[in-house]
Structures are given as C-alpha cells and as structure tokens.
C-alpha cells in the first residue's frame, strides 16, 4: 500500500496517495463484481422459477458469488480509496457476514411467515395471507407459552437476589476463595442438554432420584415434580436458576470488587452494622452493575429453550412451554415452517418492544437515582 502520509498528488486523484488509474481500477473491480453477483442471482432465480432451462442444481453458487463479491468489494475499496479503504475493511467483513446471515434470513422469514409451507409435503410453499396470523391469535398454546415467558422472566429477580447473596459471600474474607468461585461458576458452563438429563431426568426421577428421595425423607409423600403443572414450571425455573445464577454472581462480584476499599469494608458481611451498611451504601452503589446484569440476563432468558425441550418437551399440557420450545415442537411434529416462522417473527417484535421499554425504564430509573 502507499504510505499513510497525505501526499499531494498533482493530478485529478480523488484521494491523496491514489493514482487515477488505481482509482479507476478499484471502481471497475467493484462494479464488475457487483454485476457478476447480480447476474448469478438473476440467472438462478429465472432457472428456479422455470423461465430458463440452464442454471445450477442448488443455490450454493450464489453463496460463492456473494463471498467473491465481498472479497472484490474489500479489495476494490482499498484500490479506490487508499488509506480510507484500508480502514473500512476492518469493519466491512463482519458487516457483510452479519447482513448475509441475519438481515437476509429475517426478511426472508417474513416471506415464509405468510405462507402455508409443509417441508414434508410435495405442494411446496403456498401463500396464505393472514391465515397464520389468525391461527396464532386463536391458538391457546401460543398465549400459554407467552404467559410462561412472563413467569420465567420474572424469576430473574429471584435469581438476582440469590446471586447477590453469593457474590457477597465470595467477597467476604474467606479462605479458599478460588475454590468456591470455581465451584460456583461450574454450573454455568455445562451443556443445557446434559443438565436436563443430569438433573431433570435423573436426579428428579420419581422412583429413586436423589432429590425425590430427599423430599420423601422430609415427609413429602408424593413429590411429582415434573407432572404437576405448577410444580413442573417451578422445577424448570429452578434448573434454569441453577445454570444462570453463576453468571449473575460473577457480574455482581466484579462490581463489588471494583468498589473503593472503604466501601468494600462496609460491604463485607459483618453483623448488624454490615446489614445496614449494605442497604445504605453497597446496594445503591451497585445499582448500575445490577441493572446491566438484570437486563443482560432478561435478554438471555427470552431465549430459554434447551432445558425445556429436553426435560419436559413443554409438558405437562404446555405448562412449561417457552415460545422457543413451542415453535421447536410445532416444527418437529408438523414440519410447518410457515406458522412457526409467523410465531417467531411476532415474538421478535414483542421482544424488541419489551427490551426497548426495559432499557428506557432502566435509564429513567438510573437518572432519578444518580
């Protein structure tokens, strides 16, 4: 490349340090690759729609063309814009990657959402207008799953309280702090599928699981943890808490350790004065960290699926369903991608509204308490 110094070239160079030939070559490269990509897409579309008889057997060449176009675009920018081009291609690959894999599928999802499309049947895609939307409005399982999501999101507050307690314990003057920290962190790292089996299917086993045995020992005669609707929901929430409390705990612990020494002294769990000190000093100071932690945790909670799918598959009677596990079942049982996508897109809209409101409320709250 040419040097970064803003050399003044006497000719018509648009960018310092870039000769007109090079500038033209860069522009040409970008234009030519764009035309090539467009051509591949048009040919393949016409072929897929049956207008022309030549084309590729699948759409993979379009993907290859997109990758080539991305490379040519980056290269062309460097040739055309010099220093600015070199800077642009730091961010450009990630943007092109994300656009291809998020924006395009989400928009394509809208196209699927308004159709009756069973992947198993030979009929292929059938546009069915607002039928999916009407079906969704009348679907009790959807509303039930949405209600469950409210419950699961609400449990984040309980998880937060426990996590804060654990973080305070770890922040106290204790021996073997590292051992306890690692032990407390481990559940967060385990695969939700393994957790579903380890806890859900085996430790909570009705006849001889250690947890049910323990509950019987405490005098609970019939601990049907996963078959009574409200109990099943609570059990799933507890398993989810087991996995995610370490995450919140680590965030809060980092917040506690970032406080100044004097405040930390007050934050130590230390009798009655410590209790007062906590509410008057530590807790208010920890509000910003707490808010970040809770918002992040809520965002992750809205994706809850794996544990539900693998422990109860949404049962009994949809009592533990989340939106994600409901859609997963809808697809696995009926392979209807149209309806599933409609639910997903509606859910996305609800999430965006909810998160926006949450962030707005948090900001307002923080400003008032600042």
């Amino acid at each position, binding site marked *: 490349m040419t040097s970064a110094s803003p050399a003044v070239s006497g000719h018509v160079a648009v960018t310092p340090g870039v000769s007109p030939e090079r500038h033209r070559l860069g522009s040409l490269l970008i234009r030519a690759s764009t035309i090539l990509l467009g051509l591949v897409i048009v040919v393949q579309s016409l072929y897929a729609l049956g207008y022309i008889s030549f084309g590729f057997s699948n759409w993979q060449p379009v993907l290859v063309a997109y990758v080539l176009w991305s490379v040519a675009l980056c290269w062309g920018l460097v040739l055309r814009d010099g220093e600015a081009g070199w800077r642009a291609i730091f*961010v450009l690959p990630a943007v092109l990657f994300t656009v291809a894999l998020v924006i395009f599928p989400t928009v*394509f999802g809208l196209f699927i959402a308004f159709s009756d*499309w069973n992947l198993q049947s030979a009929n292929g895609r059938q546009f069915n207008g607002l039928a999916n939307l009407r079906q969704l409005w009348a679907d009790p399982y959807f509303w039930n799953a949405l209600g469950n999501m409210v419950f699961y999101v609400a449990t984040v507050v309980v998880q937060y309280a426990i996590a804060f307690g654990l973080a305070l314990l770890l922040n106290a003057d204790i021996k073997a702090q590292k051992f306890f920290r690692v032990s*407390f962190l481990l559940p967060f790292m385990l695969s*939700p599928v393994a957790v579903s089996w380890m806890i859900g*299917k*085996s430790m909570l086993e009705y006849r001889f699981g250690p947890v049910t045995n323990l509950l019987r020992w405490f005098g609970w005669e019939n601990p049907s943890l996963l078959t009574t609707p409200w109990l099943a929901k609570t059990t799933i929430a507890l398993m989810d808490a087991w996995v995610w409390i370490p995450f919140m705990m680590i965030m809060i612990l980092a917040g506690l350790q970032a406080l100044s020494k004097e405040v930390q002294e007050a934050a130590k769990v230390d009798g009655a004065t410590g209790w007062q000190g906590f509410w008057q000093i530590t807790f208010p100071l920890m509000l910003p960290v707490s808010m970040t932690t809770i918002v992040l945790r809520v965002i992750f909670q809205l994706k809850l699926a794996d544990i539900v799918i693998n422990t109860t598959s949404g049962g009994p009677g949809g009592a533990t369903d989340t939106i994600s596990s409901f859609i997963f079942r809808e697809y696995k049982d009926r392979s209807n991608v149209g309806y599933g996508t409609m639910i997903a897109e509606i859910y996305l809209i609800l999430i965006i509204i909810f998160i926006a409101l949450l962030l707005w409320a948090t900001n307002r709250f923080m400003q008032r308490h600042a």
Partner: protein
Amino acid sequence: MPRALNRILIYAALIIWTIIALFPIFWTFSTSFKVAKDVQLGHIIPWVDFTPSWLGLRAIGLSPDTIFTESTPRAEFIKRFWNSIQASIGASILALILGSMAAYGLSRFSYHWKIWKNRDISFFFLSQLILPPVVLAMPFLVLYKELALLDSMIGLILIYTLSVLPIVIWIMKDQFDTIPQELEQAALVDGCSVWGAFFRIILPIALPGMVAAFILSVILCWNEYFFAALLTSSYAKTLPVMVASQTGSQGISWWSMAALSSAAILPLIIIGIFLERYIVKGLTTGSVK
C-alpha cells in the same frame, strides 16, 4: 452477633451452595459407574454404597476391556465428539478474526458510511444479541436446504459464528479501548501501515482479551443445542444432539447416559478449573465501569 458465629454462618452458606453446585456433577460422573440395582436403590457414595463397575464406559466402548476392540458405539461417540470440537473451535476462530478486526476499527477510526456512524455500526452488531435463535431457525432451515448446507459442518460453523460474533466484538472493543492510541501513532510515524500496527503492536497486547473471547465462544458453541438439533441429522450431528437423542428410545440405560453426559461436560469442567480467570474476564467485560 459474635464474630465467630458470623464466620461459621458464612462458611456454612458457602459449603451448602458448593454442594448444590457440585452434587449434580458428582452424581453424573458416579452414575456412569453404577449397575441398574445401584441406580434403583439410590446409592450415592462409591465404595461405601456400591462397587463401581465399568458399565457406563463400556456402553460407549471406552472401558479398559473394550478400548482396544472394535466398537460401533465408540466410533459414533468419537464422531460426534469430533464434530463438536470442529464446530466450536472453527466458529470461535472465525468469530475472533471477524470480531477483532471490526472491534479494532470501531475502537480507532470514525466511520461515516452514508447515515451510518460508529455508534450505529456498534449498535447494529450488539443488537444481534437480542435476536432469539427461533427467529432465524426456520428461515435457515429453508435456506440451508436450497444452499445444500443442511447437515454440513460449514453450515453449522457459519451459524455458530453468527451467534457469538456480537459477544466477541463486545469483549474485543472493550479490550482495544483500554490500549492507549499513542502506541500505534508511534508505529505509524515509524512507517508502519495501519494493518501492520494492528498485527504487530496491538494484537499482542490484546491477547488476554482474545483468549477470554475465544474461551467464552468455545463454551457457548460447545453447548449449543437448538440449531444443531434443527440443522443437522446424520453427518454433522454434534455431541449435545447425540445426548438428547438417547433418552426415550429404549428406556433409559442410566450408566450409558451418565457416561455420555460426563463426556459432554468434562472438557468444560477442565476449562472452568484451569481458565476460570479468562471466563470471568470475558463475562464481566464492559459491565463494570
């Protein structure tokens, strides 16, 4: 409250939570050494309650007496294990490359693409965190079918990269922001190019952040189930899908499920014990200011 009592209470609470956190892990590892009778009688402590047997490891062909013989279950298990390694390492490397570059650009230069400025680009990346996997699941299913990427390693790696990219960018941008700009400016004066300064000066300093981002990505990809369950069937199936598909087929053979689950969580437990520092660093990035 007397100080001694206070100490006792703290340690009691710590130990109780340690048991809550570790018992399921201990239970899983120990169950893979139990025979049916031990499981049904709820035996817990090895050598006291029950005599350990190789039943679980034999079921996946890894016990001492089967390890040198041909074994179909072992071949299957190793294939899934290898798939999981490929998917998580591949996606993490790709995400680290794309993410570090983007994070560095956003941290150092001010972009102005049409109406897009740095803040908008950063928000664009971070907003991907909100997107639940279900929204992308069905479109990907249809698109991958058309692209002949269904049940392929590349397809899985691409979507895993996508799901960890925002986290990598978040961690790396925070990391680059803490490195003083004077360092590159000195290098630029010495005739280094922007990319030369990035590779030779900045990346070595940002290494701890990169390790943190990489480990966190590996953990997330290793545990991923939703996309793997939808987008893979026979060839590219990963370990979590294999574990999930075992239940319910012919009743549950406890020891083999326990052995499989143990194998799925063991690598992460090792990572957790030895690289805990980096995981904490990755998780707490940007949240504590």
